[in-house]
């Protein structure tokens, strides 16, 4: 190693701030080079003097006056509530890593979305085949009914023109359901009763003042007459067609 290179590194060598390999090479060089050795000693001495000067000077520096220190401590104790506040606001300040804010907003969004999803699901369940007495099924109703109860799928699709339903005399039909004598002894009947009560609280499908109260498809099957006649009057010709259906809406026959 050349003297020039060694002298450059001596400033770090004297305080052992070099890698062990470099320090070893310099040490070997210093053993054979008195000039570099002298320079290393000189650097050490300068550093020692500077440290001594620092220590001596530090002793002479003024310290905190007790009054100033007491004032500072008082200020700290006095600001204790502020500190608690800073702990709380710390979390929401911009210094908080962005991912934490992202997680919080994600959780809030998930909760809100979950709430709406559950609400919609609940409403869908509540729909549960809203068959109304005296009302003819629409195509959508039929589809929905078919999903729920395959037994009903055989019901014929009726024309939507000038439709009129004729039912045989049934005093129970003409009375409000609440006062009508009903056979609610069976399990199906109990279910129907329960459903009828529950519809009162359902804002989505609460029938209007003139509408007949809703019953489930099973309950209606119980109350339905054995034979249904349905008459259609065609406005162009004035011809009346009558369909005769059984209680499951299977066509039994017809007449003109």
């Amino acid at each position, binding site marked *: 190693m050349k003297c020039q290179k060694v002298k*450059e*590194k001596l*400033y*770090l060598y004297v*305080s052992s*701030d070099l890698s062990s390999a470099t320090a070893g090479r310099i040490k070997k060089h210093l053993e054979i080079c008195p000039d570099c050795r002298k320079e290393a000693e*000189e*650097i050490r*001495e*300068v*550093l020692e*003097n*500077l*440290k*001594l*000067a*620092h220590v*001596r*000077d*530090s002793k002479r*520096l*003024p*310290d*905190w006056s007790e009054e*100033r*220190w007491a004032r*500072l*401590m008082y*200020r*700290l*104790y006095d*600001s*204790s509530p*502020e*500190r608690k506040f*800073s*702990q709380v606001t*710390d979390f929401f300040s911009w210094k908080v890593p962005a991912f934490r804010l992202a997680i919080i907003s994600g959780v809030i969004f998930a909760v809100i979305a979950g709430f709406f999803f559950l609400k919609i699901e609940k409403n869908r369940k509540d729909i549960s085949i809203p068959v109304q007495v005296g009302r003819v099924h629409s195509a959508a109703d039929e589809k929905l009914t078919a999903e729920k109860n395959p037994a009903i799928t055989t019901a014929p699709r009726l024309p939507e023109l000038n439709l009129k339903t004729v039912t045989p005399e049934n005093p129970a039909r003409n009375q409000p359901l609440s006062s009508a004598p009903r056979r609610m002894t069976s399990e199906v009947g109990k279910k129907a009763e329960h459903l009828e009560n529950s519809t009162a609280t359902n804002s989505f499908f609460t029938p209007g003042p003139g509408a007949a109260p809703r019953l489930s498809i099973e309950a209606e099957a119980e109350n339905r007459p054995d034979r249904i006649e349905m008459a259609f009057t065609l406005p162009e010709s004035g011809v009346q067609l009558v369909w005769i259906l059984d209680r499951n809406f299977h066509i039994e026959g017809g007449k003109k």
Partner: protein
Amino acid sequence: MDEKEKELVGRALSGDSAAFEQLILPYRRPLLILAYRMTGNMEDAMDIVQDTIIKCFQYLHRFNTDKNFRNWLFQISLNLARDALKKRHREKDLNQNCFHPDFDCPGFCCGEDAFNEEISTDLRIDINSCLSRLTARERQVFILRDLEGFSIKETARLLRLSGLSIRVNLSRARKKLREMISGKKDKSDRKGGKA
């Protein structure tokens, strides 16, 4: 961080103000000296230490007790000192304030009383004046490594610099200081010879 300090930190966090004072008291003086060396002005140093203690009090809950409390405290102080220097453009003022017109070579006070000092050399080194001749980074590195006794790794962490950068700046600072002191010594020797 020793157990006693950990306990004091815990007590201070639970609202014990006396524990906080006990925790900070041993570092009161070292912090003041560090701030003074950085700024070269006692009033500024006092303000910096005061702000350091306030910040320490406010953010003590963030402190990781597995780490060194002294280093954390010095880190706050260094940041504040650097901010203060930037804000007040102290770099320029510091150089002007510490210049000694009596001597050709700055950094020494060779007054009559200087020879009565206990230092082995016949020169009394004005450390602040010497430091004022260094660049801001050289000064910070030299203060932390040589005067405060931090390792290269700790200094790098405190100043947020690489180890290589610390070594380069430290080497330059030592070289400059040595040249200042050697130059003055030569002049002093020449003066003594003439007399």
